[in-house]
């Protein structure tokens, strides 16, 4: 019937006529408008009441706010007729500091729906008794009654202004994308969170019922990515938020739009998520995480060079100290640069999370080339520091080399950070930037700590093995973990690209090895040959651009489940949901060790628990939104739905078989 109303409302714009019925009271006037001058049997008809008040007076909405009352209408109908309504339009805020009321200034137009039975008399009457309250500074109740005879003669249409008024105040029954209510830990506020395609200037939520919100407190709108958050002060009644219903009014450059919130919303409790980690715990975790990063297979080889450097220079502690500091500043600056990049992306509304780099085929390909390149350098006899520093000859100083090593160490570390620091970085990215930066800084400090300690305590260096040929052997051996990393990255990339593009990446890798080989050639006595060699190196480097795929071209990109609407992110049956990505080591380990084990699979199967996988290997905004709604900025995320509409159970990031089975048994 509600839908019908909208069809009708568009029809009656042209048909509406002014009735003979009009009620005058001291400060306002009530006018009655039927849909047309004839009413048919077995039909739904819109009848409209307009209350126009003296200038500056107002009347109230269905929920009047802190004071006042809505208008009341009593109909006297022929037998079998049914009247429903009014269908309340969206109100305005009418503040009376320190109070707040909701209502309509100057005029309000209220539609009703009249349902007629199968047989109706040729002529009939409808009686109306109305009571309404008008207020300016003071309040004066108004009332009156009258009769309308059908069919009737006078024809006088609603004005264009009135029609416009109806249109802008109509409450749409459309579900907002990703709408949810988020209850804060402190129980003092809650957030309405939703996606909206255009830029919102202002937004306000009008609750239908008393006791949910504190009317007089301002509601604050904030934007994270594409989703908006309207922060609302709770009333002290603490009503069940899932029953919250009302009108969400949104003002954009195209006008005002009103959406009905129906009172069956999904409610999330912020406290069950990551926000439980306090800021200082997050700082500590970031520091420890940074320390652990040093041991990662992708980072360790690069850093081992740094240690070699220390060992070689152990006789000049001053220089070691300087190198340590410069290396640290390179690493820290790079971390902060990445942090700024992510914040910048977020600012422009791009959905990113930590590890987002690995969703870009361009970045992945460049990383593969880098790892192949490093692998080649390790196995060859080139000195990495020399190769990268501008003043290559002066091997003794090479400060820029140290700085670059710091930068390089962080870049190669990125594939490894994602799976191990999801929680801390997730928190970091959800926080305002004055908290994000300290967390990243702490991560960077943890990362550099061993070198800083070493470089400031030269005596510690003497505990390290003495320099010797073993260093060269170890360095060459490091080529293999580097190569392995490249293969792993290639495997991730293979989910994003078609065979042709993948082959191009392989050719690019070969070119990279060619560059290493060229650089490794002994200097020729003939100068021309050296020029040719350098030219070839430059050309090869340039040619690499052509082997970088510019966009993903996966042949079967829809093998993943994509979430269309997070409003519906609920399941009818008991369901285990796995958010994963190919580049997420933790995810793959969990899957191999636990989720694909025969005991778990059998349990899921025999107990009819659905198992759904969402693949985030490629960037998917809907999945990002769901992850964020659970306080995560990355994968893995494991959710257990009971299937009865209750909130999901969140499992830890690292799974064990017993843990999963125990959780499943509770379903």
């Amino acid at each position, binding site marked *: 019937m509600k839908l019908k109303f909208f069809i009708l409302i568009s029809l009656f714009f042209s048909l509406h006529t002014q009735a003979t019925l009009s009620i005058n009271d001291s400060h306002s006037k009530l006018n009655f408008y039927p849909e047309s001058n004839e009413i048919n049997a077995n039909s739904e008809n819109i009848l409209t009441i307009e209350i126009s008040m003296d200038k500056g007076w107002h009347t109230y909405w269905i929920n009047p706010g802190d*004071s*006042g009352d*809505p208008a*009341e209408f009593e109909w006297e109908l022929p037998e079998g007729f049914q009247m429903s309504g009014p269908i309340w339009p969206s109100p305005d805020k009418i503040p009376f500091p320190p109070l707040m009321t909701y209502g309509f200034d100057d005029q309000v137009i209220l539609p009703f729906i009249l349902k007629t039975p199968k047989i109706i008399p040729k002529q009939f009457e409808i009686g109306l008794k109305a009571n309404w309250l008008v207020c300016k500074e*003071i309040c*004066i109740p108004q009332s009156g009654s009258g009769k309308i005879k059908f069919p009737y003669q006078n024809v006088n249409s609603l004005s264009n202004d009135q029609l416009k008024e109806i249109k802008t105040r109509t409450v749409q029954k459309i579900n907002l994308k990703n709408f949810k209510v988020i209850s804060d830990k402190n129980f003092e506020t809650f957030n309405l969170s939703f996606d909206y395609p255009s830029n919102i200037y202002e937004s306000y939520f009008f609750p239908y019922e008393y006791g949910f919100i504190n009317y007089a407190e301002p509601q604050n709108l904030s934007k994270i990515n594409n989703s908006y958050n309207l922060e609302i002060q709770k009333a002290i*009644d603490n009503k069940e938020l899932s029953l919250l219903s009302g009108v969400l009014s949104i003002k954009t450059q195209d006008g005002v739009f009103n959406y009905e919130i129906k009172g069956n919303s999904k409610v999330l409790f912020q406290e069950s998520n990551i926000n439980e980690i306090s800021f200082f715990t997050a700082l500590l975790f970031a520091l420890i995480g940074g320390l652990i990063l040093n041991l990662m297979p992708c980072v360790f080889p690069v850093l081992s060079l740094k240690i070699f450097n220390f060992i070689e220079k152990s006789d000049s502690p001053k220089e070691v100290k300087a190198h340590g500091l410069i290396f640290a500043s390179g690493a820290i600056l790079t971390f902060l640069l990445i942090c700024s990049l992510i914040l910048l992306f977020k600012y422009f509304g791009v959905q990113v999370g930590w590890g987002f780099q690995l969703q870009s085929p361009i970045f992945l390909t460049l990383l593969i080339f880098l790892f192949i390149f490093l692998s080649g350098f390790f196995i060859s006899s080139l000195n990495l520091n020399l190769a990268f520093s501008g003043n290559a000859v002066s091997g003794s100083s090479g400060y820029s080399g140290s700085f670059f090593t710091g930068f390089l160490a962080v870049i190669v570390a990125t594939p490894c950070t994602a799976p191990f620091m999801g929680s801390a970085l997730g928190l970091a990215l959800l926080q305002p930037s004055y908290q994000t930066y300290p967390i990243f800084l702490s991560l960077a400090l943890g990362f550099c700590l061993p070198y800083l300690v070493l470089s400031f305590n030269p005596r510690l260096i003497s505990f390290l093995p003495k320099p010797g040929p073993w260093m060269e052997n170890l360095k060459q051996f490091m080529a293999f973990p580097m190569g392995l990393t490249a293969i792993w990255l290639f495997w991730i990339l293979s989910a994003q690209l078609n065979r042709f593009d993948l082959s191009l990446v392989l050719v690019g890798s070969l070119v990279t090895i060619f560059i290493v080989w060229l650089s490794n050639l002994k200097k020729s006595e003939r100068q021309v040959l050296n020029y040719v060699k350098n030219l070839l190196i430059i050309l090869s480097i340039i040619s690499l651009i052509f082997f970088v795929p510019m966009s993903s071209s996966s042949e079967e990109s829809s093998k993943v489940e994509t979430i269309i609407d997070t409003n519906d992110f609920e399941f009818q049956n008991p369901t285990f949901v796995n958010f994963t990505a190919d580049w997420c080591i933790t995810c793959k380990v969990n899957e191999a060790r636990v989720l694909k084990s025969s005991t778990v699979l059998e349990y899921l199967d025999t107990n009819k628990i659905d198992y759904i996988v969402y693949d985030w290997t490629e960037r998917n905004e809907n999945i990002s939104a769901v992850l964020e709604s659970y306080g995560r900025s990355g994968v893995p995320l494991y959710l257990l739905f009971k299937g009865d509409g209750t909130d999901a159970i969140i499992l830890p990031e690292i799974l064990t078989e017993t843990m999963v089975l125990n959780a499943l048994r509770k379903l």
Partner: protein
Amino acid sequence: MKKLIILLFLVSLNVSAFNIKDINFINSEGKEVDLSQIDSEIIFEWSNLECPYVKRHYGSNNMQTTQKFAKSKNVIWITVISSAEGKQGYIQPNDALNTFASFGSFPDHILVDENGDLGKKFNAKTTPHIFIADKNKNIVYQGAIDDAGGSRFWTTDLNQSTNFVKKVVNDIKSNKPLSVSKTRPYGCSVKYG
């Protein structure tokens, strides 16, 4: 479970923990009233005799009957007018007792709260708005006088409506748990300055 406990704690905290022991004021006769010295329950009635809602409650004798009932149970009745000077409902303190007496209302104290201090402390929003304090001076009830609020107010027989004030006073006097502790106050807005 943890969530539930916090919730219960907050509910009890918010609805009942509002204590008025430390409040004192000068009444319309210029006498100081110290609430901690009053050894009985207290009913606060926010009023504005020009507000149509208050008028209807007085016109139908509903407010006076309620007041008589409360006084018969030895409950102190304090009428507060928080209208600012020059706004609707404001009366001179020295006229207050006579004005209310002419309506048949005889509160124990009248407070002309023209700065809105007490009104804001209580968070009084409408006229009428009722607050009931128990002997320990904790506010145990706040809200409407009865269930006649909403659109049917103008057509209901107020003397037939469910009177929350009588209900709460009866509950307190018979040591029963309160059947109601908070309702939506209805009426005109308090005319703060």
